């Protein structure tokens, strides 16, 4: 009897627990995912990502290990299965190893061997190349330090002595990336000429990707002719702005984000908050959507976090899918290679999956890691079935497996019938099977004018070929009938005139 009671109570306990588990299975209710429809209205969608785990000083056991908690961490870098965390205020870099969903501290890097200044001072960013060499943007020491995988100092990249670099400025590297050839690109505070570029041997080789100054005609006339000298001195001068963050993708293109712009410029693609820079520093980001990738298209008037998205970091997944992190509202925006919004989610707050001070973002495969500088935690997001299906569908399409891609887009539609990209994907696959009319329907639902036009052109051609005889007959009828009528009338007139003539005679 006692055993029976125990079983019952255990079952009751389980029953109590189950709803909680079920809720967790449904994804986080604290955050929500959405996309923008054709009319710029956010449409709720299933969650593309859900929180796998949150890493912080506690879960890493840093209290026991070093006795110091993470403080004002500024950057996060992922290489294979390692996460490198810039613990800026504590002047250290923490290397974290990931095994499944277990995260453990491998090393705490406080100094390097063989350098004159061996410790770091406010390291703002870290980069690890495939060989394991570490590059640290050592902000306080005004250098970018390079060391090998065993932390032996290799070289410093210091302030250029070149005349193009304003010598009165301090060299304050905040972000850095390194390309395959070992060239270092550093984003420095107070430098608005672009990224500072070094050759692998440490020589300065110029600036790259300067922001262009944009000014409207009216603004220029106003400032030039209508302002007094004092007024002009007080208003901001026309200088290009600094980038906010940079990321280098697998093909050595640098993605840069920019958070200084006027709100008005966003939708007209003058602000360009996300850029993809080639080796010449030209922006080559593809923008094939109605609006350029700018984060949120609309925001509620009078809400707490009013204003445009300020994209503070960016990371690039496979197939040129890129994800940007918005610090205004703590959101993540995923775009495909064509600049079309795949999903957006995230919010501000203290619960799991929400951020208070989102600052850095990186990815591990399809997983996303977001660093919060106020919570000093890393949130790890994993794709849901929905998110993964979207990725698979675009990947199979890029690989040329169109039918498979269409099948996956159909699966996406089963989960979210409000997804224009899925309609477009199916439309393209259907069009390849010469089912033009069907393709037209899909493109219409996706509001895709160019593709609709293409499908319609083929459909029209087919239709004309099928009905050519009817068209010829109709044309003939239209041409011949009035002609005959005219003829008959003329004849009639002649007859009447003849009769009249007879009468007159």
């Amino acid at each position: 009897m006692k055993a029976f009671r125990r079983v019952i109570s255990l079952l009751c306990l389980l029953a109590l627990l189950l709803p909680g588990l079920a809720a967790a299975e449904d994804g986080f209710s604290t955050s929500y995912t959405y996309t923008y429809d054709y009319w710029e209205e956010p449409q709720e969608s299933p969650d593309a990502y859900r929180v796998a785990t949150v890493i912080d000083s506690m879960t890493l056991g840093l209290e026991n290990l070093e006795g110091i908690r993470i403080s004002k961490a500024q950057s996060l870098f992922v290489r294979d299965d390692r996460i490198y965390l810039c613990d800026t205020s504590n002047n250290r870099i923490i290397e974290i190893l990931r095994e499944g969903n277990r995260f453990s501290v491998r090393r705490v890097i406080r100094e390097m061997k063989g350098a004159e200044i061996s410790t770091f001072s406010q390291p703002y960013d870290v980069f690890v190349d495939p060989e394991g060499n570490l590059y640290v943007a050592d902000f306080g020491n005004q250098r970018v330090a390079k060391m090998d995988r065993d932390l032996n100092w290799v070289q410093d990249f210091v302030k250029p002595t070149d005349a193009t670099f304003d010598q009165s400025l301090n060299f304050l590297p905040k972000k850095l990336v390194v390309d395959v050839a070992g060239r270092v690109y550093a984003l420095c505070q107070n430098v608005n000429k672009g990224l500072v570029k070094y050759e692998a041997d440490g020589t300065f080789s110029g600036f790259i990707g300067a922001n262009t100054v944009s000014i409207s005609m009216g603004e220029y006339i106003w400032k030039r002719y209508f302002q007094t000298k004092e007024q002009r001195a007080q208003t901001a001068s026309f200088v290009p702005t600094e980038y906010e963050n940079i990321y280098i993708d697998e093909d050595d293109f640098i993605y840069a984000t920019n958070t200084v712009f006027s709100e008005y410029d966003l939708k007209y693609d003058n602000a360009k908050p996300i850029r993809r820079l080639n080796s010449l520093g030209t922006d080559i980001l593809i923008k094939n959507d109605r609006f350029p990738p700018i984060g949120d298209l609309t925001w509620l008037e009078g809400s707490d976090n009013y204003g445009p998205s300020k994209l503070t970091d960016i990371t690039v997944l496979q197939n040129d899918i890129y994800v940007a992190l918005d610090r205004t509202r703590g959101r993540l925006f995923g775009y495909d290679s064509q600049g079309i919004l795949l999903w957006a989610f995230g919010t501000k707050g203290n619960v799991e999956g929400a951020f208070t001070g989102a600052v850095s973002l990186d990815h591990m495969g399809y997983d996303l890691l977001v660093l919060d500088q106020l919570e000093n935690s890393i949130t790890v997001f994993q794709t849901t079935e929905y998110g993964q299906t979207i990725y698979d569908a675009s990947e199979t399409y890029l690989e040329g497996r169109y039918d498979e891609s269409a099948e996956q887009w159909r699966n996406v539609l089963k989960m979210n019938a409000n997804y224009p990209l899925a309609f477009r994907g199916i439309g393209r696959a259907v069009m390849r099977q010469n089912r033009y009319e069907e393709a037209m329907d899909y493109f219409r639902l996706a509001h895709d004018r160019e593709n609709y036009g293409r499908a319609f052109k083929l459909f029209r051609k087919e239709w004309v070929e099928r009905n050519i005889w009817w068209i010829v007959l109709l044309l003939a009828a239209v041409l011949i009938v009035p002609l005959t009528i005219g003829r008959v009338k003329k004849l009639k007139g002649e007859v009447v005139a003849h009769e009249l003539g007879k009468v007159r005679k």
Partner: protein
Amino acid sequence: MSLAKSANKPLPAAEGKAARAEARRAGGRRYLASLRYSLYVITHPFDGFWDLIHEKRGTLAAAHTFLILFLLTRVLKLMLTSFQFITAPVQYINVFQQMGSLLLPFLILCVANWAMTTLFDGKGRFRDIYMAMCYALVPYILIQLPMILVSNMLTYEEGSFYQVLLSFSVIWCAFLVFVGLMQVHDYGPGKTVIFLIVTVVGASIIIFLLLTFFSLLSDAASYFISMYREIFFRLN
């Protein structure tokens, strides 16, 4: 007229009926002729508008018809044009709102033009101005109505053809408005241009006055309503 006559004089029923039918037929013929006359007006605007007013070739009924057709064209265009060429949020469109947002400015502009030109020896009466304006809308109807159908047979790449024709129709209309006003008021071109600008200013004054009037009216109404409530509550 014929109705009034027949009411005054007790005519034999059959004769009256026949006369009325005859008058109706004549009216119908005149209406049809004035409709057809619009084709002459839009192709020979200088001559056409002059005769429209001074030779009484136009009818108000035809003018109303064109205005209604114009509004219909506008709405049909929003609803039925191929989505490749038009970005209309069909789910949000209110047909009457769409029509109103065209009709009201049209009428206000007519009134403003009449008000301004009357002061500066414009020959046109309000009726004439309204009629000329309505006749000037005919190219819009004639081109845009078929273009709705044509848009559904064109692809996105052939859109320039569509756009050119649409622009053409609007330019044509603008030209007709200009010539129409010139002929109606017996103005020179320079004076017409000045009065077009003055008309727009006048229209904005009318809109301003209307808004002020309605806001004052609603203020007054709310004052009396609150007074009534106050008294009502006190009495209770």
